[in-house]
């Protein structure tokens, strides 16, 4: 065993200990906990755990979700603003905590991402939530919540667009926008998710079954070494990001690799990456495809590029923590909930 393998095996052993030791956390490898799906009349809470928003900005999302037959409860962080945040850390913690604990609320949609979830995650008490799980919805900075729930409680959550992405005028919404917003409803009401996209020439073909896990790459990197750090072995892992330089994306994929997150995947799914152009004279000289394929060349699992998840219009709802099957061929890639 060389040094690298030796070290990574230590990491695995030590991180596994708390799961056995505390009794609070359990081994849920094959049994993710799926919160109850929503029925008409159920209440969806809206809160701002990270960046701020206003009532006007989330109004289209409220109207839309009401038209789906749900009732909406607006958290008291909506309309609050402390610089970039939707309220102080305490206000954001309390708002989310109330929604986690209020059993009449069946799902919690984060109004938007931005930055700030990591500032409150350790102040939240998940005791009631663990006994009565509900869907948490969002992406980008909300990756903190997805990862934390997955790592600590094995509870599924929904990675999707948030209140700030609903159309002001639903009748005039472009088909893609309508479809991606409707995918949130499908996910919430228990429809089996299915996505089919054209094959990309750089794809590494294959089929895989596994729990879907992932989110925003930068956020996942900054959770490494913390108690929200995800374990990806045996899973279908997806990542997306926006506004990063290629060199930074390269460094983040090295972080995934060196923290052992790329070694035992069932499959790797690469979502949208809005890349910040290199400064003149500092060209990185590798494409995103090359960066990714280089990191996974010693592994044999399938790799699927250009998946419709990320900071872009075609960002479909994904059920994190739920088992999916990825099937790839020359012409298409299909990801299906199983």
């Amino acid at each position, binding site marked *: 065993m060389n040094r690298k393998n030796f070290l990574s095996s230590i990491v695995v052993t030590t991180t596994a200990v708390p799961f056995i030791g505390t009794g609070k956390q359990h081994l849920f490898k094959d049994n993710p906990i799926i919160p109850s799906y929503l029925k008409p009349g159920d209440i969806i809470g809206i809160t701002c755990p990270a*960046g701020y928003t206003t009532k006007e900005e989330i109004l289209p999302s409220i109207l839309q979700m009401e038209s789906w037959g749900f009732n909406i409860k607006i958290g008291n962080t909506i309309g609050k603003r402390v610089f970039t945040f939707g309220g102080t850390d305490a206000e954001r913690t309390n708002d989310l905590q109330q929604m986690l604990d209020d059993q009449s609320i069946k799902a919690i949609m984060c109004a938007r991402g931005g*930055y700030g979830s990591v500032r409150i995650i350790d102040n939240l008490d998940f005791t009631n939530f663990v006994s009565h799980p509900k869907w948490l919805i969002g992406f980008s900075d909300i990756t903190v919540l997805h990862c934390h729930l997955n790592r600590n409680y094995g509870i599924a959550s929904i990675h999707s667009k948030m209140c700030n992405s609903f159309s002001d005028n639903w009748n005039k919404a472009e088909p893609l926008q309508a479809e991606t917003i409707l995918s949130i409803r499908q996910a919430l009401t228990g429809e089996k998710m299915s996505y089919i996209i054209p094959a990309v020439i750089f794809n590494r073909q294959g089929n895989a079954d596994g729990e879907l896990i992932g989110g925003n790459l930068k956020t996942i990197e900054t959770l490494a070494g913390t108690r929200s750090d995800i374990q990806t072995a045996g899973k279908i892992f997806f990542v997306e990001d926006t506004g990063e330089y290629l060199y930074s994306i390269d460094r983040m994929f090295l972080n995934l690799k*060196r923290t052992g997150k790329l070694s035992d995947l069932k499959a790797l799914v690469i979502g949208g990456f809005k890349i910040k152009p290199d400064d003149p004279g500092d060209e990185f000289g590798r494409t995103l495809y090359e960066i990714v394929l280089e990191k996974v060349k010693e592994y044999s699992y399938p790799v699927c590029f250009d998946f419709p998840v990320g900071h872009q219009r075609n960002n479909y709802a994904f059920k994190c923590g739920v088992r999916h099957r990825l099937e790839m061929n020359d012409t298409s890639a299909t990801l299906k909930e199983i």
Partner: protein
Amino acid sequence: MTKTPPYLNKGDTIGIICPSGFMPMDTAHTCVRTLQAWGYQVKTGSTMESHSGNYFSGTDKERLDDLQRMMDDDNINAILCARGGYGFGRIIDQVDFSSFKKKPKWIIGFSDITVLHSHLYANYKIASMHAPMAAAFNADEHHNIYIESLQKAIAGGKARYECSPHAFNRQGKAVGELVGGNLTLIAHLTGTPSDIKTKGKILFLEDVGEYLYNIDRMLYQLKRAGMLDKLAALIVGGFTDSKDTERPFGKTVYEIIHDIVKDYDYPVCFNFPVSHEKENYAMKIGMEYKLKVETEKVILKEQPDNKKAKGYRR
């Protein structure tokens, strides 16, 4: 006990390499001449004469080979990294330390070189030097106290650095091994085989050009990874050219750090001269220092060599 590489004697050879980003050879001329004026011979590695057309000073293999040769060549007594940038993380797991760990030598640099400093300390407990690199010698007055601190450090001099107090400083005294470097890299290495243990250590951090929210996020990572819990002390260096988002973050970098260490009671000093600017003292990572944060001044003083460490001196 940290292994201390042998300090340099006049006539010794310093190898210069570019293990990460590209740098034109011209930029290193003053550095080379200065090292020669200090009485050392200089050997430039192949990555210093690179004609690379992209970001890096060479392919991963070229950069790795240049570093490996310098590490394993008994005629090279110390290695100075000419610049940081990005790229050390791409080769660190391919470096063979088997010969180097038996015969360690000082490796000098900062910024991206934090990867190597952390890796050496975490895996081999070998001291290395966080200090100015080639471009810093080009400043108008390269005989400044920061370049001089490097001259003194490589010759085995014991550092005693003083700086002015800052309103956010938390007073106190601490003794511990010095660890740290660039915050982005320290955060990035968390959870990897190059991750440093900070318990009982004096941790120093600096960064350049980062968004305020991102600095906050990285500090939360360190905090949540337990890396700020049990420090002997925290030294906050320069956080220059920090950027803000369209929706302002609402705190300065020092306010962010001040807030995050409120839960602890160890000494903390701000605006210490370790940074991407001219103010950048040579700091020996892994060596023991005493930090005194007082009302009128801050003093960082290197502790005397212990007996075991002397075994590595020539």
